[in-house]
């Protein structure tokens, strides 16, 4: 048993490399020409499509679910990256938008509203997935503007405090809105949420496709993979656009940006709204996947977790954020599957709980990061170039 942790972390190194590669296809074009890049892309796509079967075979049945969650985190981290990485607005309450999306899905796709409004919705509301998803994104975007508007004049630590408060307000509301009208069912949360069905294929039951039987977690894997790809695509396009440049100008120097004719108010609101929309959409996916939402999924710790993914990977760099998301989402699982058996084998009992070990490692990793790689594991394009130039200067 004791060889398992090492084995697991190695595999996850592999997974991280895969996801990293997914992004660096563009970079490959310069290195090895267009032809090879296309090859690399197809290879990567095939690897990603087969990933759930690999994890099933190599790591065990539970891992696809973990990968599914990792992708939700990646989507969240990429959404937060727009606010923090591109526009430079420190947001410590980002999970609130995830919560808004999740509850939006929960209310619009479960029997719950029958409790609150039995006359209007005797069976609850059961909108289709494709209806709820944009609804959740738009609603979360609205909340993004709601948070953004009063914080426009705030910067840095002040902004962080206000956004932190906002995140908590949303969670506390969700916790208490079971009276006078039972809207959120309070701390018990909302259960029996309709599973996602895409083109009449219910993702909650095992489906037989081309003779391959795909369990529910596999189906969700492909759904999330598609959405993650979409979010990556959108992030990339936004980054290299007039809007993205304006965001970066605000991040670098707000006064100079406004002197250059950038309407900083509107663009900051837009960054909040775009980030929140990504968060809301992934929240909806989360609710459909989980079938159950409750306020405890949206604690401050989750906001901090997502922010850490962004910072650890490399703020502002899409590949870095993906890597950060993968690492932090699977770390607890690696620990859970590795540390307990290891301790059992060594000492015959569990001395350190993996949960507390997780926080220890986490804190340690962040400190080491800040000391040795302050720009993140994969620094952003600009930061990397910055290092390159430094080297040139040194050699000269």
């Amino acid at each position: 048993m004791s060889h398992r942790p090492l084995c697991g972390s190695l595999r996850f190194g592999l997974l991280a490399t895969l996801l990293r590669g997914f992004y660096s296809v563009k970079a490959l074009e310069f290195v090895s020409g267009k032809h090879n890049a296309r090859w690399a892309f197809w290879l990567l796509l095939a690897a990603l499509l087969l990933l759930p079967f690999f994890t099933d075979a190599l790591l065990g049945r539970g891992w696809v679910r973990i990968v599914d969650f990792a992708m939700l985190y990646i989507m969240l981290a990429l959404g937060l990256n727009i606010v923090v990485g591109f526009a430079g607005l420190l947001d410590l309450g980002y999970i609130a938008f995830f919560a808004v999306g999740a509850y939006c899905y929960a209310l619009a796709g479960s029997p719950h509203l029958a409790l609150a409004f039995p006359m209007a919705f005797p069976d609850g509301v059961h909108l289709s997935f494709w209806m709820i998803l944009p609804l959740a994104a738009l609603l979360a975007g609205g909340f993004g503007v709601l948070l953004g508007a009063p914080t426009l004049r705030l910067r840095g630590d002040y902004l962080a405090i206000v956004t932190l408060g906002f995140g908590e307000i949303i969670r506390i509301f969700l916790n208490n809105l079971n009276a006078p009208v039972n809207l959120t069912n309070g701390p018990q949360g909302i259960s029996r949420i309709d599973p996602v069905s895409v083109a009449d294929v219910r993702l909650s039951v095992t489906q037989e496709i081309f003779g391959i039987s795909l369990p529910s977690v596999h189906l969700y894997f492909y759904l999330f993979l598609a959405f993650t790809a979409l979010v990556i695509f959108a992030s990339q396009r936004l980054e290299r656009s007039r809007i993205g440049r304006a965001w970066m100008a605000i991040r670098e120097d707000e006064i100079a940006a406004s002197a250059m004719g950038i309407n900083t108010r509107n663009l900051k609101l837009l960054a909040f709204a775009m980030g929140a929309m990504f968060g809301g959409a992934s929240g909806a996916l989360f609710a459909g996947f989980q079938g159950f939402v409750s306020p405890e999924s949206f604690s401050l710790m989750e906001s901090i977790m997502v922010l850490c993914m962004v910072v650890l990977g490399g703020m502002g760099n899409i590949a870095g954020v993906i890597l950060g998301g993968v690492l932090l989402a699977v770390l607890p699982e690696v620990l859970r599957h590795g540390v307990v058996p290891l301790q059992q084998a060594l000492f015959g009992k569990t001395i350190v709980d993996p949960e507390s070990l997780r926080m220890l490692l986490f804190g340690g990793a962040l400190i080491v990061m800040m000391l040795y790689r302050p720009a993140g594991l994969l620094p952003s394009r600009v930061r990397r170039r910055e290092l390159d130039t430094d080297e040139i200067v040194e050699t000269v």
Partner: protein
Amino acid sequence: MNNATPLLQLSSIGKQFGGLSALSDVSLHIRRGEIYGLIGPNGAGKTTLFNVITGLYQPSAGEFHFDGKSYQVCKPHVLAKAGIARTFQNIRLFANLTALENVMIGRHVRTRAGVLGALLRDRATRNEERAITERARELLRYAGIEKPAQTLAKHLSYGEQRRLEIARALATDPLLLALDEPAAGMNATETASLKTLLQTIRASGITVLLIEHDVKLIMGLCDRVAVLDYGRKIAEGVPEEVRKDPAVIAAYLGGGDD
């Protein structure tokens, strides 16, 4: 373009910071196509006036007309759109972006692609992006800094950073280019080439407002000069006259009756 009306007209501008009156009753006008200098001893209110003109400060009193329109309470980005571009006394470039990107951001106000354009990258957006890049490269060449286009702004030399600020400001297609001490910290060669650049800019039809400590540069370059002291305008006119004005001499050298 109507040449009779001044491009910028300030009437009785005042600016209070709490009880401190940084500017009082400053009136001046800048004609189209001229290089207008603003000088004065340290703390005279030059930069305050400059910030009022570029919308960073709201004037406490007075009127402000630019290009025939009145601007009362105005944000910097509105004035940038109206055609006022500025540089900063202590350089404020987008330090972690390249020189080219800095100038491309200057094009923001004259372009229009939004989120949908960014996501779909349709033909119009692609064409606009290409135009932005081309114009930015052109401006870098114009300002004499095309070589370090891909260098981060913060790694440019001091003189290059000053030039980049000017290129970025020019990217907004300004009617009035306002420069806050562009020659500060430059050596004689750099100052001379800056002078040439400013003359080229004026020749292309852009009006220039210049705040400067370097009196020699101001005198050699400006068509008209205004002198501020303690928040008031004490003299205005062609450089030769202003230089001989007793009030100006007193302000710079002290003395007079106290």
